């Protein structure tokens, strides 16, 4: 059963909060991980692994590089 965008966003917000301390409420789809949320590449690896556990979708390294915004991750998980 596919998750809605809202459900995925909530899950990503929880993961980002756990890893970086950024409030989940600040994690909105248009936010850039690097420019807006100030998340470094090591933390992105942690987020990708946690997202894999949460959503059962593997994010390969070569794809991770292309995921610039929260919306990019949502789309990747949905598709």
């Amino acid at each position, binding site marked *: 059963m596919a998750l809605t965008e809202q459900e995925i966003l909530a899950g990503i917000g929880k993961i980002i909060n*756990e*890893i*970086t*301390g950024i409030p989940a409420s600040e994690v909105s789809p248009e936010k850039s991980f690097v420019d807006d949320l100030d998340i470094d590449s090591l933390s992105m*690896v*942690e987020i990708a*692994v946690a997202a894999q556990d949460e959503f059962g979708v593997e994010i390969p390294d070569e794809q991770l590089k292309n995921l610039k915004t929260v919306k990019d991750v949502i789309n990747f998980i949905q598709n």
Partner: protein
Amino acid sequence: MNTDQVRVVVTGLGATTPLGGDVASSWSALLAGQSGVRNLTEDWVDSVPVKFAATAAVDPTEVLPRPEARRLDRAEQFALVAAREAWAHAAIEKVDPERLGVVVGSGIGGITTVLAAYDTFKERGWQRLSPFTVPMLMPNGPAGWIGIELGARAGVHATVSACATGAESIGYGIEMIRSGRADVVVAGGTEAAIHPLNIGSFAAMRAMSTRNDAPQLASRPWDKSRDGFVLGEGAGIVVLESEEHARARGAKVYAVAAGVGYSADAHHIAQPDPTGAGIVLAMRRALENSGLTGADIKHINAHSTSTPAGDVVETLAINEVIGDHPLVTSTKSMTGHLLGGAGGIESVFTILALHERIAPATTNIEELDEGVAVEIVRDKPRALPDGQIAAINNSFGFGGHDVAVAFTSV
């Protein structure tokens, strides 16, 4: 002699120890003669012959934000907690980043990270390793994190000399300022090594006390029935500053970091040289480097760890170099032995002893070993004299490292 050298002063203190989560609580517990030793309750305790340790009074994960704590080894957590306290205490509003340095080491590094990460690796594969595993396990991690936080660009260093690490770091910090490389240096030691592998390994050396029926009486330097050291954890950090820099900003000065003496036993990888020649040399060099004489030294925070082999020889060396007049204490009787953190917290205690003119006691001595050749402060703290006085913090480490750091009152 150092008369033409830059004078270095201490303007900030930070510590998190088995006695308290900061300097004030650690120091008052120390003067009250409290013990930081606790029974271990972890499920692995049945697998090791030592069932107690001097665990940190305040768990650093209770103080640090969770996202920060999860990417730090416990030794890094202790170091950051203590460095933040020391930095806030020094209240330096402005320093040229290129003139600010860090020297913080640990004896063992991020060993709990190494072992936990290896379990993760074996059970779940490399993909599940934290991307922070390497910065957590590297022994220069604590120095690196502090340097990043403070923006220190004069140089960030991590000296490693087992149980002499903290004192060696402070000595190196003094030298950074004296040689003109920095105006301010944050220096000290940290350790987080309470793990069954370490306890088992030290026990395999027969180095640890196994007084399981009375853990708080186990660390008893110079007592006739001492049977080994008690493992402790935590960090002690000082802010060192050139006197000129400190005076220009009207800083409160706690002591002068007068000088340091280093030597090496070149005798045995883990046993002290029974002649004490290395200790004698280190203390002699500390006096020369500080422009002090033995008569100036009124207090010594000794290395003595409660092991049968090491304690008495240190007192013989003190007697030979300094005399039998200083009030000698081992605060390890209350804090346990913090390994690489020992020189850090014990320098903090030495500075406070000068500043407040009081020498903490050595607890747990029931019968003084007859070989002890100096005056040991027992049972209750003793007052130190007025006027210009000096003190030494001794720290020695496996590998044969001997370090003596000298401080004078202001």
